[in-house]
């Protein structure tokens, strides 16, 4: 490389390698270190926004758990037997919004408080249906049975129906919809 270069521009190369007005090799390499360090630190500074850009999805303060409206409390004044409601759940996926409908059951507990049950069977994820004639929930897939308050009565499911976090706000029942891991004895949030 160097040889061919010297051959191409013979007038100039000797001056370059013979020293001449050049700084001494020691000074040149000191300058080199200085330049390299300076360039590297500026480069590091410039890469800060790039890192923040890439890491955005990981460090974005996730929107507070989205609460879905179930309906006005008056509608559930006598939630015996359980009342099935379809709620709209909104999820953010980057720049997308995914809206889906989920079925939940509203029950009234003995103390008068409302509870909201997920309709997803903790066995293999089928939707359970309320059978008024037997006063129980029945999973159409493998025959899991649950009491009106969601307790497991029988069949293959490892636990009772999952309770969702709920609250009453200005006369409206709201629920925080979540998914739970199937086939495990304890309720475990997955999304």
């Amino acid at each position, binding site marked *: 490389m160097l040889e061919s270069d010297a051959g191409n521009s013979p007038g100039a*190369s000797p001056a370059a390698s013979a020293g001449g007005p050049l700084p001494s090799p020691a000074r040149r390499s000191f300058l080199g270190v200085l330049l390299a360090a300076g360039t590297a630190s500026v480069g590091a500074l410039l890469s800060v926004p790039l890192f923040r850009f890439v890491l955005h999805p990981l460090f974005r303060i996730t929107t507070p758990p989205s609460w879905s409206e179930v309906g006005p409390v008056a509608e559930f004044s006598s939630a015996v037997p359980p009342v099935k409601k379809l709620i709209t759940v909104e999820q953010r996926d980057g720049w*997308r919004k995914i809206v889906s409908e989920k079925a939940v059951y509203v029950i009234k507990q003995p103390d008068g408080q409302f509870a909201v049950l997920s309709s997803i069977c903790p066995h293999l994820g*089928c939707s359970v249906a309320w059978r008024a004639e037997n006063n129980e929930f029945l999973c159409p897939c493998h025959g899991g049975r649950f009491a009106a308050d969601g307790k497991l009565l029988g069949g293959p499911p490892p636990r009772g129906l999952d309770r969702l976090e709920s609250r009453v706000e200005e006369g409206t029942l709201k629920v925080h919809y979540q998914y739970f891991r199937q086939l495990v004895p304890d309720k475990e949030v997955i999304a």
Partner: protein
Amino acid sequence: MEERQSKSRKEQNITVESRGTFFRWLDRRTGVDSLLRSALDEPIAGGASLAYVFGSGLLFLFLSQVITGVFLALYYVPSADHAHTTIAYITKEVTAGSFIRSIHAYGSSAIVIVLLLHITQTFLYGSYKGKRELLWLAGCVLFALMLGMSFTGYLLPWDQKAFFATTVGTNILSEIPLVGNALKSLLRGGTEMGTLTLSRFFVLHVFMIPAFIFAGVAVHVYLFRQAGAAGPIQGDAATLKQTTEPFYPRQVLFDIVFALLIICGLGLLAHLAPIELGPKANPADTQYVPRPEWYYIPVFQWLKYWEGALAIAGILVIPGFVALLFVALPFLDRRPERRPWKRPVAVTIYAVIFIGLGVLGGLSRRNDLRDPAVASQLAKQHEDVESFMKTPFEPELSGSSLAAANVALADPLAAKGKDIFEQQACNACHGDGGVGTAAAPKLIGVGAKFDSEKLTGLLKQPTTKMTAGGMPATNLKDEDMKALVAYVRSLK
């Protein structure tokens, strides 16, 4: 010659030996020492100068565009449906997104400016002379590629400005006789602007043109090293030889300082005046007054003066002639004279073209301000952009979302069927809106496969294959069954 070669090799060995063990190890395997030396010891006749920083400045800007471009692609989707949403997401939500996009967008303008400086310096110094025809040609190719980059990149945000400016830009092609319309359709991926146009521009902008630019830069730099730096415009050979110094360290220092100035300027601009995004392209808008990026404004104004039969002259013949003159410059101007004041004809032509472009730009601006209709429309467009920028980012409703599917559910029978679908827990296995799950196939599109009667039969009496998969027989009143079938067949 022999002597000099052995001398330089000896010197090289001394330097290598004086470095650390790792450097020696690396050098024996890669030859990095001689590579570095040939890069850094490039002789510059007459010494380092601030006038020579533009070429490396362009390389620096190109790399900056590559880096910011690659990062922008992390969030960008090249489709007419999502391009605008994803750019809005980058601009309004993603951390440092607006900054990086602004560096990229301002970077394209910076490239145009530095490129013009580079060309002007080369022209005034007569650096294209003396066996540098191919070097000049490679530069011309890079110039054209760069214009292609800015033209294709402009469309990608898919806002009103991008859409209409590109509509006009591609329409110009159809003025070319015989092949014009075919060319336009080829570039657009159809006769009209659409999502295929965006895909084509994206591929050109991100894959094809950059690949050619990388190759072009390699050729340009190689030819430059072959020819050697041209050096100052005057001075006798002896003085030049005495003042010759290598590229490193002073010229490297100048180049780095220039690169720092560029990036600081871009960073400040991006921070203080971030690039905006207008409302999403609306092809039905008939009011929109498109204006291209500032560096295309003179050409845009130029085209206004050529109508009817003369259009070919204005669009093709005259610009083609000027471009040819430009490309052929080192072949036409063969005198060794480099001092600009001794080259009045060449310098005058160059100045006239540049001043002419400036005047055209000024005229365009004046016309826009003087025409009240255009001025008010441009002001309105500016307001639209401002108000769009003020609204918070609105995520795009996914096409497979249930809410989107519900809109299509105008048929009351199908709407009733949807309730039954959920009551019967069909969605437990077939998914909301019949999108399908791991447990059961999707139902979208079954309407095309089975008529209502056949579907009713299957629901009442599933095939053995269906039963084996876990599908139970459906027992419903006739009218409910009718509604369910109507719903399932409506799933698209």
